[in-house]
């Protein structure tokens, strides 16, 4: 474990605080947008009846959201956290656009 001195130096800097803020933004807003996209795509493409696909997608969304949040705080840096959200989000948005899910 890191000694007290090092921890306080690492945790009190402005840089550190901004990084935490950035991650929190990524987790709450980024995580929600990514989850919403995943839910939209799953609701459209899951191979079952429409109402069933919608319900399945929505039921699974909270597990997805939790994973996204865990990822954001587990990533090595705030930048990596954002990238880890943005890449799948773009892929899902592309899929959604192809499937005419988005307006």
């Amino acid at each position, binding site marked *: 474990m890191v000694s007290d001195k090092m921890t306080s130096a690492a945790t009190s800097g402005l840089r550190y605080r901004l990084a935490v803020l950035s991650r929190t933004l990524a987790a709450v807003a980024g995580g929600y947008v990514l989850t919403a996209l995943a839910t939209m795509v799953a609701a459209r493409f899951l191979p*079952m009846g429409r*109402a*069933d*696909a*919608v319900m399945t*997608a929505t039921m699974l969304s*909270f597990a997805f959201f939790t994973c996204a*949040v865990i990822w954001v705080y*587990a990533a090595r840096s705030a930048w990596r956290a954002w990238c880890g959200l943005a890449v799948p989000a773009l892929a899902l948005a592309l899929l959604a656009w192809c499937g005419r899910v988005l*307006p």
Partner: protein
Amino acid sequence: MKEGLRQSMAWLHTWCGLLVCWVLLLVFAGGSASYFKEEISLWMMPELHASAAAPVTQAQAIERAAAYLQQRAPQAERWFITLPDQRSVAMRVGWIASPAAAGKEAASSPRSRFKSERIDAATGQPLARVRDTRGGEFLYRLHFDLHYLPVQWARWIVSVCALFMLVAIVSGVITHRRIFADFFTFRRNKGQRSWLDAHNATAVLALPFHLMITYTGLITLMFMIMPWGVQTAYREQGGEKAFFEEVFPGGAGRVKAAGVAAPLTSLPALAERARQHWQGAPLALVVVNNPGDAKATAVITRQKLATLSSLQPALVFDGVSGRQLAAAGEAPSATAVTRGALVGLHLAHFADPWLRALFFLCGLCGYLMVATGALLWAVKTRQKQAKAIVAGARAGFGLRLVEALNLGAIAGLPIAFAGYFWANRLLPVEMAGRAQMEIHLFFAAWALAAVLAQIRPSLGMWRLQLGAGALLFLGLPLLNVFTTDSHLGVTLLQGRGPWAVAGCDLTLLALGSVLALAASLLARHQRARHERAVQGPARRTAHPAVAKEIT
């Protein structure tokens, strides 16, 4: 967060938990009580305790209810008749007044035009003698609608807190290296270590329950929190409305009134046909849309069978000709049953009283888990500031706030609940606005505890509030002796029941005893500390093991 995975997860766990813990305490307390919603309602209406449930057939009960509604609210937009079952004695009737009849409130939502009354299934007359109370229904609504807030806001607040809790549970499990070994570890009287052990024990003991109840709670509100799947898949059909009509049969038969009067068909006859349709299974609910209109419909819902799923099939009839229009929810899809089962798990309506008691205990475990977690943060932070505090500095603002909020919530909530029950027994039965006053007193008692906690968040205050909670809880069964004819002496010692009322009293005694035990342990701890302080500060230094704990 720059260290390893476990450290990041510990950080996430700490802040996810701490930010919402006081709301979670309220949600756990209200939710646990809701498992015995009907029993609490019965307990809070002593006038009903003596009434031997006169055997009335469901058809008779519906006939009486329809006659009562015809006379009380002939112009209503919708009637609801909730039939009595094994858990509730009285029959509830409700109606949504038409916007025209509601007058000034015309612009308001149907919810605010909703009125409900309890009537005697045998006579069809309102139970006028029964005191006006929201009973367990208030605690149930408090669990997800809070109070004094627009419902939609409250549900969002509770949902966000539930999402935080879900993340806190998962990150807590990840960060916990020796989850099984630690469960069997308890070091008492070791300060911070003991709080950590207690937090682990209460969290791991009921971990499947905590995870289940959080996730299924989110499922119950999932179309509000995550509406995007519905929005996109049903975009061409006009969005949510089309989806709900397809999936939830409860809203079936909601058509616009024609504005032409027509007599309502016989409801008991419809009920009989529904009963035959379901091979004699009992009915739960009769809804009449546009009673007295040419476009009236009647929706009859079957009682839930003893299955996990909360889904109930319904039959829709034409309210004038009596023709069957539709049968909804007869063969739900696997997905619908899955969702029904998840919601059913949350509500636990399927469970018998003993299983619900287990759920109740798990809920209390959740309360203790959140409480010990919040206390652990405060103890740990105080430890960090110990040197400065000894040197004469004040505790930091955040620490002081958390300590006071902890005290006001953990020890204050029992006082609020007890205050609600005391108000139920002591407010005059004839008082106007009685039900609302009981609720105001719940919050007044809580506010008093919370404000006192903010003024003086000391160990003495903890002892005072825990002790007050204990006295209030232990006093309730005693108060019953003076205010009701169905106290424990009658229900238990003479064995006359009702058992639900005896169970409530015994639970109050048990909760009061636990609070008293907590208060007395605290007193002992305080005495020991006082003696140590008198003997000199030689043993003040913290155990080295404490400093090594993961943050």
